[in-house]
Protein backbone atom coordinates (compact mmCIF):
# COMPACT_ATOMS: atom_id res chain seq x y z
CA UNK A 1 0.00 0.00 0.00
CA UNK A 2 2.87 2.33 0.75
CA UNK A 3 4.03 3.26 -2.72
CA UNK A 4 3.34 2.12 -6.22
CA UNK A 5 5.89 4.19 -8.02
CA UNK A 6 9.19 3.59 -6.37
CA UNK A 7 9.09 2.38 -2.77
CA UNK A 8 12.88 2.65 -2.91
CA UNK A 9 12.67 6.38 -3.35
CA UNK A 10 10.32 6.77 -0.43
CA UNK A 11 12.57 4.61 1.71
CA UNK A 12 15.47 6.88 0.81
CA UNK A 13 13.43 9.86 1.95
CA UNK A 14 12.64 8.11 5.23
CA UNK A 15 16.30 7.32 5.66
CA UNK A 16 17.23 10.95 5.13
CA UNK A 17 14.59 12.08 7.59
CA UNK A 18 15.93 9.56 10.11
CA UNK A 19 19.39 11.03 9.80
CA UNK A 20 17.94 14.45 10.60
CA UNK A 21 16.20 13.07 13.66
CA UNK A 22 19.27 11.23 14.89
CA UNK A 23 21.34 14.37 14.75
CA UNK A 24 19.35 15.58 17.76
CA UNK A 25 20.88 14.52 20.99
CA UNK A 26 17.47 14.38 22.67
CA UNK A 27 16.20 11.84 20.17
CA UNK A 28 17.68 8.38 20.17
CA UNK A 29 17.49 5.51 17.73
CA UNK A 30 14.45 3.97 19.45
CA UNK A 31 12.62 7.30 19.26
CA UNK A 32 13.52 7.56 15.59
CA UNK A 33 12.04 4.08 15.09
CA UNK A 34 8.88 5.05 16.87
CA UNK A 35 8.52 8.36 15.06
CA UNK A 36 9.28 6.74 11.73
CA UNK A 37 6.49 4.25 12.31
CA UNK A 38 4.23 7.21 13.08
CA UNK A 39 5.28 8.97 9.91
CA UNK A 40 4.72 5.83 7.87
CA UNK A 41 1.26 5.46 9.36
CA UNK A 42 0.52 9.01 8.37
CA UNK A 43 1.89 8.49 4.85
CA UNK A 44 -0.11 5.28 4.39
CA UNK A 45 -3.30 7.06 5.30
CA UNK A 46 -2.63 9.98 2.97
CA UNK A 47 -1.76 7.62 0.12
CA UNK A 48 -5.00 5.74 0.77
CA UNK A 49 -6.78 9.08 0.50
CA UNK A 50 -5.36 9.53 -2.98
CA UNK A 51 -2.08 11.43 -2.61
CA UNK A 52 1.08 10.30 -4.38
CA UNK A 53 3.74 8.86 -2.05
CA UNK A 54 5.91 11.94 -2.51
CA UNK A 55 3.14 14.33 -1.63
CA UNK A 56 2.07 12.15 1.24
CA UNK A 57 5.58 12.17 2.64
CA UNK A 58 5.82 15.94 2.46
CA UNK A 59 2.44 16.46 4.09
CA UNK A 60 3.17 13.92 6.82
CA UNK A 61 6.52 15.49 7.67
CA UNK A 62 4.93 18.93 7.68
CA UNK A 63 2.23 17.70 10.03
CA UNK A 64 4.74 16.36 12.47
CA UNK A 65 5.93 19.92 12.98
CA UNK A 66 9.40 21.23 13.50
CA UNK A 67 12.06 18.96 14.94
CA UNK A 68 13.10 21.79 17.24
CA UNK A 69 9.81 21.69 19.04
CA UNK A 70 9.72 17.92 19.04
CA UNK A 71 13.15 17.60 20.57
CA UNK A 72 12.31 20.27 23.13
CA UNK A 73 9.35 18.19 24.27
CA UNK A 74 11.48 15.06 24.35
CA UNK A 75 14.14 16.89 26.33
CA UNK A 76 11.61 17.66 29.05
CA UNK A 77 10.99 13.99 29.63
CA UNK A 78 14.51 12.75 28.87
CA UNK A 79 16.69 15.42 30.41
CA UNK A 80 19.35 12.84 31.22
CA UNK A 81 20.16 12.63 27.53
CA UNK A 82 21.56 16.12 27.60
CA UNK A 83 24.18 14.91 30.03
CA UNK A 84 26.52 12.83 28.01
CA UNK A 85 27.23 9.57 29.72
CA UNK A 86 30.35 7.53 29.34
CA UNK A 87 29.49 4.26 27.68
CA UNK A 88 32.26 1.95 28.73
CA UNK A 89 31.76 -0.60 26.02
CA UNK A 90 30.90 1.69 23.18
CA UNK A 91 27.73 2.67 21.42
CA UNK A 92 25.43 -0.33 21.31
CA UNK A 93 24.20 1.01 17.99
CA UNK A 94 27.49 0.49 16.21
CA UNK A 95 28.94 -2.99 16.60
CA UNK A 96 32.30 -1.97 15.13
CA UNK A 97 32.89 0.81 17.67
CA UNK A 98 31.59 -1.54 20.36
CA UNK A 99 34.12 -4.31 19.86
CA UNK A 100 36.88 -1.75 19.43
CA UNK A 101 36.21 -0.01 22.72
CA UNK A 102 35.61 -3.34 24.47
CA UNK A 103 39.03 -4.45 23.31
CA UNK A 104 40.42 -1.12 24.55
CA UNK A 105 38.87 -1.80 27.91
CA UNK A 106 40.49 -5.22 28.18
CA UNK A 107 43.90 -4.02 27.08
CA UNK A 108 43.62 -1.14 29.55
CA UNK A 109 42.70 -3.54 32.36
CA UNK A 110 45.69 -5.68 31.42
CA UNK A 111 48.02 -2.69 31.49
CA UNK A 112 46.56 -1.43 34.76
CA UNK A 113 47.03 -4.87 36.29
CA UNK A 114 50.60 -4.84 35.03
CA UNK A 115 51.23 -1.45 36.65
CA UNK A 116 49.59 -2.69 39.84
CA UNK A 117 51.82 -5.74 39.96
CA UNK A 118 55.00 -3.88 38.99
CA UNK A 119 54.82 -1.82 42.14
CA UNK A 120 54.99 -4.95 44.26
CA UNK A 121 57.67 -6.76 42.25
CA UNK A 122 60.62 -5.11 44.06
CA UNK A 123 59.13 -6.31 47.34
CA UNK A 124 59.91 -9.85 46.17
CA UNK A 125 63.57 -8.87 46.21
CA UNK A 126 63.31 -7.57 49.73
CA UNK A 127 62.92 -3.86 49.00
CA UNK A 128 60.30 -2.39 51.34
CA UNK A 129 58.64 1.01 51.27
CA UNK A 130 59.85 1.78 54.76
CA UNK A 131 63.52 0.95 54.36
CA UNK A 132 64.07 1.77 50.69
CA UNK A 133 61.94 4.87 50.33
CA UNK A 134 64.43 6.55 48.05
CA UNK A 135 64.43 3.56 45.69
CA UNK A 136 60.66 3.84 45.32
CA UNK A 137 60.77 7.63 45.00
CA UNK A 138 63.25 7.36 42.12
CA UNK A 139 61.49 4.48 40.40
CA UNK A 140 57.81 5.07 40.95
CA UNK A 141 57.11 6.45 37.50
CA UNK A 142 59.05 3.52 36.04
CA UNK A 143 56.42 1.16 37.44
CA UNK A 144 53.44 2.96 35.94
CA UNK A 145 54.40 4.97 32.86
CA UNK A 146 55.72 2.09 30.71
CA UNK A 147 52.29 0.47 31.02
CA UNK A 148 50.54 3.67 30.01
CA UNK A 149 52.93 3.97 27.07
CA UNK A 150 52.23 0.35 26.17
CA UNK A 151 48.49 0.99 26.18
CA UNK A 152 48.87 4.09 24.00
CA UNK A 153 51.30 2.40 21.61
CA UNK A 154 48.84 -0.47 21.25
CA UNK A 155 45.99 1.94 20.56
CA UNK A 156 48.00 3.82 17.97
CA UNK A 157 49.20 0.63 16.35
CA UNK A 158 52.79 1.79 16.77
CA UNK A 159 55.42 0.37 14.43
CA UNK A 160 58.11 -1.98 15.70
CA UNK A 161 60.78 0.69 15.41
CA UNK A 162 58.78 3.09 17.60
CA UNK A 163 58.16 0.36 20.16
CA UNK A 164 61.88 -0.39 20.20
CA UNK A 165 62.69 3.29 20.80
CA UNK A 166 60.16 3.43 23.63
CA UNK A 167 61.63 0.32 25.23
CA UNK A 168 65.18 1.66 24.95
CA UNK A 169 64.17 4.97 26.54
CA UNK A 170 62.45 3.28 29.48
CA UNK A 171 65.47 1.05 30.02
CA UNK A 172 67.66 4.15 29.88
CA UNK A 173 65.43 5.72 32.52
CA UNK A 174 65.79 2.65 34.73
CA UNK A 175 69.56 2.79 34.32
CA UNK A 176 69.67 6.50 35.16
CA UNK A 177 67.58 5.95 38.26
CA UNK A 178 69.51 3.01 39.62
CA UNK A 179 72.97 2.64 38.13
CA UNK A 180 74.58 5.76 39.57
CA UNK A 181 75.96 5.50 43.10
CA UNK A 182 73.71 8.18 44.59
CA UNK A 183 73.49 8.48 48.35
CA UNK A 184 69.96 8.55 49.75
CA UNK A 185 70.51 12.00 51.21
CA UNK A 186 72.28 13.51 48.20
CA UNK A 187 70.81 16.36 46.17
CA UNK A 188 71.21 14.34 43.00
CA UNK A 189 68.67 11.79 44.20
CA UNK A 190 66.10 14.54 44.58
CA UNK A 191 66.96 16.09 41.23
CA UNK A 192 66.69 12.72 39.51
CA UNK A 193 63.39 11.92 41.24
CA UNK A 194 61.94 15.19 39.96
CA UNK A 195 63.28 15.05 36.42
CA UNK A 196 62.89 11.39 35.59
CA UNK A 197 59.07 11.63 35.63
CA UNK A 198 59.25 14.56 33.20
CA UNK A 199 61.59 12.69 30.89
CA UNK A 200 59.45 9.55 31.03
CA UNK A 201 56.22 11.49 30.56
CA UNK A 202 57.60 12.82 27.29
CA UNK A 203 58.41 9.23 26.35
CA UNK A 204 54.72 8.51 26.96
CA UNK A 205 54.14 11.46 24.65
CA UNK A 206 56.17 9.70 21.99
CA UNK A 207 53.89 6.68 22.37
CA UNK A 208 50.90 9.00 22.13
CA UNK A 209 52.03 10.53 18.85
CA UNK A 210 53.39 7.21 17.59
CA UNK A 211 51.23 7.31 14.46
CA UNK A 212 52.54 10.67 13.32
CA UNK A 213 55.20 12.06 15.59
CA UNK A 214 56.18 15.01 13.42
CA UNK A 215 52.70 16.46 13.22
CA UNK A 216 52.18 19.63 15.20
CA UNK A 217 48.47 18.78 15.57
CA UNK A 218 49.26 15.42 17.14
CA UNK A 219 51.65 17.05 19.57
CA UNK A 220 48.98 19.55 20.51
CA UNK A 221 46.71 16.55 21.11
CA UNK A 222 49.31 15.21 23.48
CA UNK A 223 49.31 18.52 25.37
CA UNK A 224 45.52 18.29 25.65
CA UNK A 225 45.87 14.67 26.73
CA UNK A 226 48.34 15.69 29.45
CA UNK A 227 45.97 18.27 30.92
CA UNK A 228 42.97 15.98 30.98
CA UNK A 229 45.01 13.04 32.24
CA UNK A 230 46.26 15.13 35.13
CA UNK A 231 42.75 16.24 36.05
CA UNK A 232 41.39 12.69 35.96
CA UNK A 233 44.33 11.56 38.05
CA UNK A 234 43.62 14.23 40.66
CA UNK A 235 39.94 13.26 40.74
CA UNK A 236 40.83 9.60 41.16
CA UNK A 237 43.30 10.50 43.90
CA UNK A 238 40.50 12.30 45.76
CA UNK A 239 38.25 9.26 45.40
CA UNK A 240 41.08 6.98 46.48
CA UNK A 241 41.66 9.14 49.54
CA UNK A 242 38.01 8.85 50.54
CA UNK A 243 38.13 5.08 50.00
CA UNK A 244 41.27 4.74 52.11
CA UNK A 245 39.80 6.88 54.89
CA UNK A 246 36.62 4.81 55.01
CA UNK A 247 38.54 1.57 54.90
CA UNK A 248 40.80 2.67 57.72
CA UNK A 249 38.09 4.01 59.99
CA UNK A 250 35.51 1.27 59.48
CA UNK A 251 38.07 -1.47 60.12
CA UNK A 252 39.54 0.46 63.01
CA UNK A 253 36.04 0.51 64.53
CA UNK A 254 36.06 -3.29 64.77
CA UNK A 255 39.57 -3.38 66.16
CA UNK A 256 41.49 -4.19 62.95
CA UNK A 257 43.93 -1.51 61.87
CA UNK A 258 44.52 -1.94 58.12
CA UNK A 259 47.31 0.60 58.08
CA UNK A 260 49.79 -1.71 56.45
CA UNK A 261 47.38 -2.83 53.76
CA UNK A 262 46.51 0.76 52.91
CA UNK A 263 50.00 2.20 52.89
CA UNK A 264 51.80 -0.80 51.38
CA UNK A 265 49.24 -2.11 48.95
CA UNK A 266 46.22 0.07 48.29
CA UNK A 267 47.87 3.46 47.82
CA UNK A 268 50.99 2.57 45.79
CA UNK A 269 49.32 -0.04 43.60
CA UNK A 270 46.20 2.08 43.24
CA UNK A 271 48.26 5.08 42.19
CA UNK A 272 50.14 3.07 39.56
CA UNK A 273 46.92 1.61 38.18
CA UNK A 274 45.26 5.05 38.23
CA UNK A 275 47.98 6.36 35.91
CA UNK A 276 46.89 3.86 33.26
CA UNK A 277 43.17 4.19 33.95
CA UNK A 278 43.33 7.98 33.66
CA UNK A 279 45.02 7.65 30.27
CA UNK A 280 42.32 5.28 29.09
CA UNK A 281 39.58 7.59 30.41
CA UNK A 282 40.94 10.54 28.47
CA UNK A 283 41.05 8.42 25.32
CA UNK A 284 37.56 7.06 25.87
CA UNK A 285 36.03 10.38 26.80
CA UNK A 286 37.83 12.76 24.50
CA UNK A 287 34.89 13.17 22.19
CA UNK A 288 32.26 12.73 24.86
CA UNK A 289 33.11 15.32 27.46
CA UNK A 290 34.25 18.88 27.15
CA UNK A 291 37.86 19.29 28.08
CA UNK A 292 38.20 20.63 31.57
CA UNK A 293 41.73 22.05 31.44
CA UNK A 294 40.77 24.90 29.05
CA UNK A 295 37.78 25.75 31.25
CA UNK A 296 40.02 26.04 34.30
CA UNK A 297 42.42 28.10 32.21
CA UNK A 298 39.68 30.54 31.30
CA UNK A 299 38.76 30.90 34.94
CA UNK A 300 42.26 31.37 36.25
CA UNK A 301 43.99 33.41 33.56
CA UNK A 302 42.41 36.70 34.69
CA UNK A 303 42.99 35.86 38.35
CA UNK A 304 46.64 34.98 37.86
CA UNK A 305 47.16 38.08 35.73
CA UNK A 306 45.70 40.21 38.48
CA UNK A 307 47.83 38.50 41.13
CA UNK A 308 51.07 38.91 39.15
CA UNK A 309 50.35 42.56 38.34
CA UNK A 310 49.58 43.22 42.00
CA UNK A 311 52.86 41.59 42.93
CA UNK A 312 54.78 43.72 40.42
CA UNK A 313 53.12 46.89 41.68
CA UNK A 314 53.97 45.90 45.24
CA UNK A 315 57.62 45.30 44.32
CA UNK A 316 57.89 48.71 42.67
CA UNK A 317 55.91 50.47 45.38
CA UNK A 318 57.89 49.14 48.33
CA UNK A 319 61.13 49.04 46.29
CA UNK A 320 61.80 45.85 48.18
CA UNK A 321 64.08 43.49 46.32
CA UNK A 322 62.92 39.91 45.93
CA UNK A 323 64.44 37.92 48.73
CA UNK A 324 66.05 34.99 47.04
CA UNK A 325 66.19 32.22 49.55
CA UNK A 326 67.32 28.72 48.73
CA UNK A 327 63.89 27.63 47.60
CA UNK A 328 62.93 30.86 45.85
CA UNK A 329 64.20 29.99 42.39
CA UNK A 330 62.16 26.82 42.48
CA UNK A 331 59.09 28.83 43.45
CA UNK A 332 59.54 31.17 40.50
CA UNK A 333 60.19 28.21 38.20
CA UNK A 334 56.84 26.84 39.29
CA UNK A 335 55.26 30.21 38.64
CA UNK A 336 56.57 30.11 35.07
CA UNK A 337 55.30 26.56 34.69
CA UNK A 338 51.84 27.64 35.81
CA UNK A 339 51.87 30.59 33.41
CA UNK A 340 53.03 28.33 30.60
CA UNK A 341 50.28 25.88 31.49
CA UNK A 342 47.67 28.63 31.38
CA UNK A 343 49.00 29.69 28.00
CA UNK A 344 49.20 26.17 26.61
CA UNK A 345 45.73 25.08 27.63
CA UNK A 346 44.03 28.13 26.31
CA UNK A 347 45.96 27.67 23.06
CA UNK A 348 44.86 24.05 22.98
CA UNK A 349 41.19 24.97 23.10
CA UNK A 350 41.30 27.98 20.85
CA UNK A 351 39.80 28.03 17.40
CA UNK A 352 42.91 28.66 15.27
CA UNK A 353 40.91 30.74 12.81
CA UNK A 354 39.24 33.08 15.30
CA UNK A 355 40.51 36.68 15.22
CA UNK A 356 42.50 37.99 18.20
CA UNK A 357 40.27 39.06 21.08
CA UNK A 358 40.31 40.42 24.58
CA UNK A 359 41.37 37.10 26.06
CA UNK A 360 44.52 37.06 23.93
CA UNK A 361 45.43 40.49 25.25
CA UNK A 362 44.85 39.26 28.76
CA UNK A 363 47.20 36.39 28.08
CA UNK A 364 49.83 38.72 26.76
CA UNK A 365 49.54 40.72 29.98
CA UNK A 366 49.89 37.51 31.99
CA UNK A 367 52.97 36.35 30.12
CA UNK A 368 54.63 39.76 30.17
CA UNK A 369 54.09 40.21 33.90
CA UNK A 370 55.45 36.73 34.58
CA UNK A 371 58.50 37.56 32.47
CA UNK A 372 59.04 40.83 34.32
CA UNK A 373 58.92 39.06 37.66
CA UNK A 374 61.28 36.38 36.46
CA UNK A 375 63.78 38.92 35.15
CA UNK A 376 63.75 40.58 38.57
CA UNK A 377 64.45 37.22 40.17
CA UNK A 378 67.26 36.43 37.74
CA UNK A 379 68.87 39.83 38.33
CA UNK A 380 68.79 39.14 42.03
CA UNK A 381 70.25 35.73 41.64
CA UNK A 382 73.01 36.06 39.06
CA UNK A 383 75.58 37.38 41.49
CA UNK A 384 75.01 34.67 44.00
CA UNK A 385 74.74 31.56 41.93
CA UNK A 386 78.48 31.30 41.41
CA UNK A 387 79.89 32.23 44.79
CA UNK A 388 77.43 31.90 47.63
CA UNK A 389 75.76 28.59 46.90
CA UNK A 390 78.24 27.22 44.45
CA UNK A 391 77.26 24.97 41.61
CA UNK A 392 75.01 22.38 43.17
CA UNK A 393 72.85 20.10 41.00
CA UNK A 394 69.72 21.66 42.51
CA UNK A 395 70.72 25.17 41.55
CA UNK A 396 71.96 24.23 38.11
CA UNK A 397 68.77 22.34 37.31
CA UNK A 398 66.54 25.14 38.59
CA UNK A 399 68.47 27.75 36.68
CA UNK A 400 68.42 25.68 33.50
CA UNK A 401 64.65 25.29 33.77
CA UNK A 402 64.28 28.97 34.35
CA UNK A 403 66.21 29.79 31.21
CA UNK A 404 64.25 27.26 29.13
CA UNK A 405 60.91 28.60 30.32
CA UNK A 406 62.05 32.19 29.95
CA UNK A 407 63.04 31.64 26.34
CA UNK A 408 59.75 29.91 25.61
CA UNK A 409 57.63 32.60 27.25
CA UNK A 410 59.60 35.50 25.81
CA UNK A 411 59.16 34.23 22.28
CA UNK A 412 55.51 33.36 23.05
CA UNK A 413 54.95 36.91 24.23
CA UNK A 414 56.44 38.23 21.01
CA UNK A 415 54.29 35.89 18.91
CA UNK A 416 51.22 36.82 20.91
CA UNK A 417 51.93 40.48 20.33
CA UNK A 418 52.34 40.04 16.59
CA UNK A 419 49.23 37.87 16.53
CA UNK A 420 47.20 40.53 18.33
CA UNK A 421 48.49 43.06 15.84
CA UNK A 422 47.50 40.64 13.10
CA UNK A 423 50.99 40.22 11.74
CA UNK A 424 51.28 36.46 12.22
CA UNK A 425 48.66 33.72 12.15
CA UNK A 426 47.75 31.90 15.31
CA UNK A 427 49.25 28.69 13.98
CA UNK A 428 52.76 30.12 14.41
CA UNK A 429 52.23 30.34 18.15
CA UNK A 430 50.84 26.83 18.24
CA UNK A 431 53.77 25.47 16.22
CA UNK A 432 56.24 27.25 18.49
CA UNK A 433 54.79 25.52 21.54
CA UNK A 434 54.57 22.07 19.99
CA UNK A 435 58.03 22.43 18.45
CA UNK A 436 59.40 23.29 21.88
CA UNK A 437 58.34 19.99 23.47
CA UNK A 438 61.58 18.16 22.54
CA UNK A 439 63.56 20.88 24.37
CA UNK A 440 61.94 19.87 27.65
CA UNK A 441 62.66 16.23 26.89
CA UNK A 442 66.30 16.84 26.04
CA UNK A 443 66.82 18.94 29.16
CA UNK A 444 65.12 16.41 31.46
CA UNK A 445 67.29 13.60 30.03
CA UNK A 446 70.42 15.71 30.42
CA UNK A 447 69.59 16.35 34.06
CA UNK A 448 68.87 12.70 34.69
CA UNK A 449 71.81 11.22 32.76
CA UNK A 450 74.56 13.84 32.77
CA UNK A 451 74.09 15.78 36.00
CA UNK A 452 74.94 13.05 38.53
CA UNK A 453 78.42 12.35 37.10
CA UNK A 454 78.91 16.06 36.31
CA UNK A 455 78.39 16.99 39.95
CA UNK A 456 80.27 13.88 41.12
CA UNK A 457 77.07 12.34 42.58
CA UNK A 458 76.71 15.12 45.14
Amino acid at each position, binding site marked *: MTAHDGPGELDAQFEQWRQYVLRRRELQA*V*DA*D*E*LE*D*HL*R*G*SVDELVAAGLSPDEAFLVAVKR*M*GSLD*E*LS*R*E*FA*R*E*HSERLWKQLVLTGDSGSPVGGTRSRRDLWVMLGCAAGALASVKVPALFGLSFDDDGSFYARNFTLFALPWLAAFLAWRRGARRSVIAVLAVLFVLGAVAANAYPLADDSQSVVVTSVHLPIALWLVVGLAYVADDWRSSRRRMDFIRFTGEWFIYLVLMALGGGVLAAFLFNTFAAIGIVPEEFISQWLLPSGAAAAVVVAGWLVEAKQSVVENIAPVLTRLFTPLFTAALLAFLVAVVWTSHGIDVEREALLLFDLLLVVVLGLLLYSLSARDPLAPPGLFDKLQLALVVSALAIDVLVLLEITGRITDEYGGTPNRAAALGENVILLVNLAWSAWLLLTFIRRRTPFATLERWQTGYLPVYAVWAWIVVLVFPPLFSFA
Partner: protein
Amino acid sequence: MKVAKDLVAASATPMVLGILAEGESYGYAIIRRINELSGGELDWTEGLLYPLLHRLERLGYLESSWQAVAGERKRKYYRVTDRGLAELVEQRRQWDTVVGALKEIWHDRAPLTVQPLEGLA
Protein backbone atom coordinates in the same frame (compact mmCIF):
# COMPACT_ATOMS: atom_id res chain seq x y z
CA MET B 1 -12.38 26.31 18.33
CA LYS B 2 -9.04 25.58 19.89
CA VAL B 3 -8.77 23.85 23.26
CA ALA B 4 -6.41 25.71 25.58
CA LYS B 5 -2.93 24.21 25.94
CA ASP B 6 -3.18 23.81 29.70
CA LEU B 7 -6.43 21.94 29.40
CA VAL B 8 -5.00 19.64 26.74
CA ALA B 9 -1.99 18.94 28.93
CA ALA B 10 -4.09 18.31 32.04
CA SER B 11 -6.40 15.89 30.28
CA ALA B 12 -3.70 14.07 28.34
CA THR B 13 -2.82 11.44 30.95
CA PRO B 14 -6.37 10.19 31.65
CA MET B 15 -7.08 10.14 27.91
CA VAL B 16 -4.05 8.01 27.08
CA LEU B 17 -4.67 5.69 30.02
CA GLY B 18 -8.34 5.47 29.11
CA ILE B 19 -7.65 4.63 25.48
CA LEU B 20 -5.05 2.03 26.41
CA ALA B 21 -7.43 0.51 28.95
CA GLU B 22 -9.52 -0.51 25.95
CA GLY B 23 -6.61 -2.59 24.65
CA GLU B 24 -2.98 -2.23 23.61
CA SER B 25 -2.21 0.31 20.94
CA TYR B 26 0.57 2.42 19.39
CA GLY B 27 1.29 6.09 18.98
CA TYR B 28 -0.23 6.82 15.63
CA ALA B 29 -3.43 4.93 16.47
CA ILE B 30 -3.74 6.77 19.80
CA ILE B 31 -3.54 10.15 18.09
CA ARG B 32 -6.11 9.04 15.51
CA ARG B 33 -8.40 7.81 18.25
CA ILE B 34 -8.18 11.06 20.21
CA ASN B 35 -8.86 13.01 17.06
CA GLU B 36 -11.83 10.85 16.33
CA LEU B 37 -13.26 10.96 19.87
CA SER B 38 -13.08 14.75 19.99
CA GLY B 39 -14.59 15.17 16.57
CA GLY B 40 -11.34 16.58 15.27
CA GLU B 41 -11.13 19.30 17.92
CA LEU B 42 -8.22 17.80 19.81
CA ASP B 43 -5.22 17.69 17.52
CA TRP B 44 -2.34 16.30 19.51
CA THR B 45 1.21 16.76 18.36
CA GLU B 46 3.83 14.02 18.38
CA GLY B 47 5.80 16.20 20.77
CA LEU B 48 2.97 15.89 23.27
CA LEU B 49 2.17 12.22 22.84
CA TYR B 50 5.51 10.40 22.70
CA PRO B 51 7.22 12.08 25.66
CA LEU B 52 3.99 11.50 27.61
CA LEU B 53 3.97 7.80 26.69
CA HIS B 54 7.62 7.56 27.77
CA ARG B 55 6.87 9.31 31.03
CA LEU B 56 3.93 7.03 31.83
CA GLU B 57 6.11 4.04 31.01
CA ARG B 58 8.82 5.34 33.34
CA LEU B 59 6.23 5.78 36.11
CA GLY B 60 5.17 2.18 35.58
CA TYR B 61 1.66 2.94 34.31
CA LEU B 62 2.41 1.48 30.89
CA GLU B 63 4.52 -1.29 29.42
CA SER B 64 5.75 -1.38 25.88
CA SER B 65 6.96 -3.95 23.39
CA TRP B 66 8.26 -3.84 19.86
CA GLN B 67 6.27 -5.92 17.43
CA ALA B 68 6.91 -6.59 13.77
CA VAL B 69 4.24 -5.41 11.38
CA ALA B 70 4.15 -5.53 7.60
CA GLY B 71 7.55 -6.99 6.80
CA GLU B 72 10.51 -5.18 8.30
CA ARG B 73 8.56 -2.47 10.04
CA LYS B 74 8.70 -2.43 13.80
CA ARG B 75 6.05 -0.83 15.91
CA LYS B 76 6.09 0.00 19.58
CA TYR B 77 2.91 -1.14 21.31
CA TYR B 78 1.86 0.16 24.69
CA ARG B 79 -0.40 -1.54 27.18
CA VAL B 80 -1.63 -0.35 30.53
CA THR B 81 -0.42 -2.00 33.74
CA ASP B 82 -2.28 -2.58 37.00
CA ARG B 83 -0.67 0.53 38.43
CA GLY B 84 -1.84 2.40 35.35
CA LEU B 85 -5.38 1.15 35.88
CA ALA B 86 -5.28 2.27 39.50
CA GLU B 87 -4.05 5.67 38.38
CA LEU B 88 -6.83 5.83 35.81
CA VAL B 89 -9.41 5.15 38.53
CA GLU B 90 -7.93 7.94 40.65
CA GLN B 91 -7.82 10.38 37.71
CA ARG B 92 -11.39 9.52 36.79
CA ARG B 93 -12.53 10.24 40.32
CA GLN B 94 -10.89 13.67 40.16
CA TRP B 95 -12.22 14.44 36.71
CA ASP B 96 -15.72 13.33 37.71
CA THR B 97 -15.55 15.81 40.56
CA VAL B 98 -14.42 18.64 38.29
CA VAL B 99 -16.83 17.81 35.49
CA GLY B 100 -19.70 17.28 37.96
CA ALA B 101 -19.10 20.66 39.56
CA LEU B 102 -18.93 22.37 36.18
CA LYS B 103 -22.15 20.69 35.12
CA GLU B 104 -23.85 21.88 38.30
CA ILE B 105 -22.79 25.45 37.61
CA TRP B 106 -23.79 25.34 33.98
CA HIS B 107 -26.94 23.35 34.55
CA ASP B 108 -29.69 24.27 32.12
CA ARG B 109 -28.08 27.53 31.20
CA ALA B 110 -27.83 28.69 27.69
CA PRO B 111 -24.25 28.69 26.39
CA LEU B 112 -22.49 31.95 27.21
CA THR B 113 -24.50 34.27 25.05
CA VAL B 114 -26.27 35.74 28.06
CA GLN B 115 -25.00 38.89 29.73
CA PRO B 116 -23.05 38.08 32.89
CA LEU B 117 -25.29 40.33 35.03
CA GLU B 118 -28.48 38.75 33.80
CA GLY B 119 -26.95 35.39 34.43
CA LEU B 120 -26.50 36.29 38.08
CA ALA B 121 -30.05 37.42 38.53
